[in-house]
Structure formats: structure tokens, C-alpha cells
């Protein structure tokens, strides 16, 4: 029976379950970024809104990348339920801080999947997840740099800070 299952799928089942949780997390992050983008859009914070719309797309693309991988490896990718998303924020700085927390949470979850793949000798999943490990370093760094701008420009009008923020 074990050989039979091995012929049908290459992915380890525990790793598959964790990757399905990861899909849900990435999709939730995407929805959350969309709420942030909308908040910025309503206040004409042009650069911030562009940044968050792009982040929303990116997170969804990450989720889809994992989704396709799970199915390609013979597993069953599950379309996730998205829990409620917060649409209320106190200010732009708070939004970016929330965004950093979210990225850190995603990074930790990726590490969990990576460790599980390594422990299960699931080499294909481990190699696949390496891209995400690097990607998360980049993502966290981008948000940290933005929060640094807030620190440097403390006291300046919000619109002026927004003009100095990257859009990607």
C-alpha cells in the first residue's frame, strides 16, 4: 500500500497539510493587504495604495504558486476559507507596522513548512520552499525600510511621507 501511495504522490502528507495551511495564510495576507490598499486609496495616499495593491497581488501569487506545487506533486490543494479581515486602521504607520507583523508571521510559517520538509526527507518540497525563504527576507526588508522612513520623517505631513515611499 505504501508503494502504491508513493507512486501516486511525491509530496509528504504532513508537508502537504502544512502547505495547505500556508496557502490559507498567503490568501489571508492578500485579503488583508487589499483592505490596507483600500484605506490608503480612500485617503489619496497614492504611493501607499500602489504598494499595497501590488502586495495583495504578490501574496495571492505566492498562494497560487504553492497551490500548483501541491497539485503537481500529486497532493490535494485546498481552496482556503478566508477569515474576517480588519478594515479599520488608526493611521498609515500602523498599517505598515501591521504589514511587517504579517510578513513575520508568514516567514515563521514558511520556516515551519521548510523544517517539516527537511525532517520528512521531502527534498522536492524543501527545494521548492527555498525560494520562499529568500522571498520573505526581501519582503520583510522592504517593509522595515518603509518604517525607517516614517522614523526619519516623524512630524511631517502624511502626504509628504507617502510621496517618499516606494510603490513596489
Amino acid at each position, binding site marked *: *500500500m505504501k508503494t*502504491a*501511495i508513493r507512486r501516486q504522490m511525491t509530496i509528504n502528507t504532513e508537508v502537504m497539510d502544512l502547505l495547505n495551511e500556508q496557502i490559507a495564510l498567503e490568501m489571508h495576507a492578500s485579503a488583508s493587504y487589499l483592505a490596507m490598499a483600500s484605506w490608503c486609496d480612500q485617503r489619496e495616499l497614492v504611493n501607499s495604495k500602489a504598494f499595497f495593491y501590488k502586495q495583495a497581488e504578490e501574496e495571492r501569487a505566492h498562494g497560487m504558486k504553492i497551490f500548483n506545487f501541491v497539485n503537481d506533486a500529486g497532493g490535494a490543494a485546498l481552496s482556503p476559507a478566508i477569515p474576517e479581515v480588519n478594515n479599520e486602521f488608526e493611521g498609515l504607520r500602523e498599517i505598515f507596522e501591521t504589514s511587517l507583523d504579517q510578513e513575520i508571521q508568514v516567514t515563521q510559517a514558511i520556516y515551519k513548512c521548510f523544517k517539516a520538509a527537511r525532517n520528512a526527507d521531502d527534498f522536492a518540497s524543501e527545494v521548492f520552499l527555498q525560494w520562499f525563504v529568500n522571498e520573505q527576507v526581501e519582503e520583510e526588508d522592504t517593509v522595515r525600510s518603509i518604517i525607517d522612513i516614517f522614523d526619519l520623517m516623524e512630524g511631517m505631513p502624511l502626504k509628504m511621507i507617502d510621496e517618499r515611499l516606494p510603490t513596489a
Partner: protein
Amino acid sequence: MEILSDVTFNIQLKKHTFCNYQLKIDEKVMTLTFPQVLQLRNKVNLLTSAENLENIIENENFVLLFIADRKHLVFLEIPKLLDLKEELAYCFSDF
């Protein structure tokens, strides 16, 4: 393993052909494709989470489970549900 070849269990999942699996629950025999086996594993894992088990015990104390893309409906009490979980976990363990 050879020793167990003649023993029949109440719940048993066996490979039938290359892409078909046979699930036997008591007298009922069902044929499942591999994606259906995966789906069943997911359903059973969800149902047997601590929170859901507690919920089942507090209410009907059984589950009605659709299997193989709703071709079959089975009645499972908690011990049998846990047996099914174990059988599925065994099939997927360390392949």
C-alpha cells in the same frame, strides 16, 4: 505483514488496480480513486480534530460521511471514525 494477509479488519483500505483503491467499512465495499482517498483523508482529519470530536460527542454522537464524490454515504460512530483515521494514516505513513 504476511501474517496479517488472511486477517480481515472492519475497516480496510487496499489498492485495487493502479488507480483504484478499495475501502471496506464493515460489509460495505467502496472503490475510490486516489484524489478521492486524499479528500477522504482531509475530511476525516477535520472531523477528528479535538474540537470537532467534542462537538460530535455533545450532539449526535455519530457522523454521516459522504465518500467517493458523494457516491456513498456511511454512518460512523466515534470509534469507527477513529479507526478510519488510523487506517488512512497508516496508508500514508512513511511511503
